């Protein structure tokens, strides 16, 4: 209510982080990265959940990724 009134920007990070933690089948909803045969460039800021995902994806893809 307070955020709505003062028009604070939407904060996505806690929403997505908590949703992953609270869902029982989070691992089943994880995207399979094993079919990527090219390279990936991953860009994300620290104000949303994207940097965590970029790091996770980058670590899985290893030499195939830059983030």
């Amino acid at each position, binding site marked *: 209510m307070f955020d709505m009134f003062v*028009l604070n920007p*939407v904060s996505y990070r806690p*929403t997505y982080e*908590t949703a992953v933690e609270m869902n029982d*089948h989070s691992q089943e*909803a994880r*995207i399979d990265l094993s079919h990527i045969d090219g390279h990936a460039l991953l860009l994300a800021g620290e104000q949303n959940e994207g940097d965590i995902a970029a790091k996770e*994806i980058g670590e899985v893809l290893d030499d195939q990724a830059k983030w």
Partner: protein
Amino acid sequence: MFIAAILILVLVITLFSLRFYNVNKYNVSDMQETENYHDLSDYPEQFSYGTVRYFKNGMASGFHLQPDTPIAAEPIVVFGGSEGSSNFPLAEQISEQGYEVYSLFFFGADNQVDTLNKILLEFFQDFLDEAELNNEDITIIGGSKGAELALVLTNYYNEVHHLVLYTPSSYIYQGLVFNEEARSSWIWEDTEMLYIDITHNPVSLLLSN
């Protein structure tokens, strides 16, 4: 009584000051307009170094930006995010460097689902058929929900080769709709893909909005 009135006045001034600050810093308002990305008259028929063609095929919809003198590189597909655009400005910028670019909608066009909810991934096959890119390597550039889509597509289409992802996601999240039941964002062969429901969060996106 006088002190209480002063405190209330300070509180009101503080709240309105914060509101004024946010409006000016983040350019937000409580009456944000939704942009229509599907009015074709808003798009050019050519760019600086080539032509633009709108196409529809099955569930595929988007623009093909063909440079007059293309460089030797695999075609690039660009997706927008949850706003529903085809990321056309980025497509234009890249095609001016000589890349052949396809700027695709994945919902909202008249041959697609209206909202970012239960999107049939087979739209990408319709695109491949239209562009005659079956079995050809493609680079996808996607942001946010478009990045999630790009990663999901790697599981079904060998054509997806390189990826450039802005604010990607490791997980499949629910569709982003507020006037109907949000289910999975993606459907493959009539089956909803398992997804994370963000409204399980007590600080849900709905409340945040």
